[in-house]
């Protein structure tokens, strides 16, 4: 089964880390990704730049608008995601729970893929 693991994090947690701890967390995240990618349990993993770097687009009545900033201003914001492919939801939860960002105070939402087909 395929799931998206959406990682939410309070940006001030990372900003408040001493440089040494920040680079240790960085390394731990890269190792987590590499280990699970090698086993085929994670198929793709990407952190994102902070929400302040986002631009949000809408189209209404044929007119397009673009505004600087994320879709929603929240204390804990989507910081990145990884996609897992495991036989069960329980295994996906176990992997998500081992993410170094969860140990650092983040939250992971695990949500199944929606298969789509042409009509």
């Amino acid at each position: 089964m395929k799931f998206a693991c959406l990682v939410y994090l309070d940006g001030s947690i990372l900003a408040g880390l001493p440089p040494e701890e920040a680079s240790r967390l960085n390394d731990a995240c890269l190792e987590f990704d590499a280990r699970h990618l090698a086993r085929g349990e994670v198929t793709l993993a990407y952190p994102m730049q902070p929400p302040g770097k986002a631009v949000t687009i809408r189209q209404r009545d044929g007119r397009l608008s673009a505004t600087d900033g994320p879709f929603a201003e929240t204390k804990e914001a989507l910081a990145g995601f990884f996609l897992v492919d495991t036989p069960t939801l329980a295994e996906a939860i176990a992997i998500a729970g081992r993410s170094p960002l969860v140990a650092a105070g983040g939250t992971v939402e695990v949500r199944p893929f929606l298969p789509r087909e042409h009509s």
Partner: protein
Amino acid sequence: MKYACLVYAEMPSMLALSKEEGRRLDDDSLDYDKELEQRGHLIAGQALQSPETAVTIRVRDGRMSSTDGPFAETKEVLCGFILVEARDMNAALEIAAAIPMARYGSIEVRPILEINHS
């Protein structure tokens, strides 16, 4: 550069689409994914099931807890994403503007963070 196009929409209004409209949106979305793939922009594109199918995980004081439901209960919810390769933010915005879901929801375009080992 890589960009995440995060697709947000209101679930009630998506569920209220007529069968025909829903089918057209699905077809348009799949066609656009294919087009982006052919143009060399697509890294991954995926729709997600509705937020109530989610499980949310936290670790506090070394103990893991999991609760049913999404991270946040909001009116507009994340319902999928397209990960693209684009020259710059403007090129990524151009790609995002043509995502069929932009007609119904909002697309947040955010650059991917490149991290390297220390």
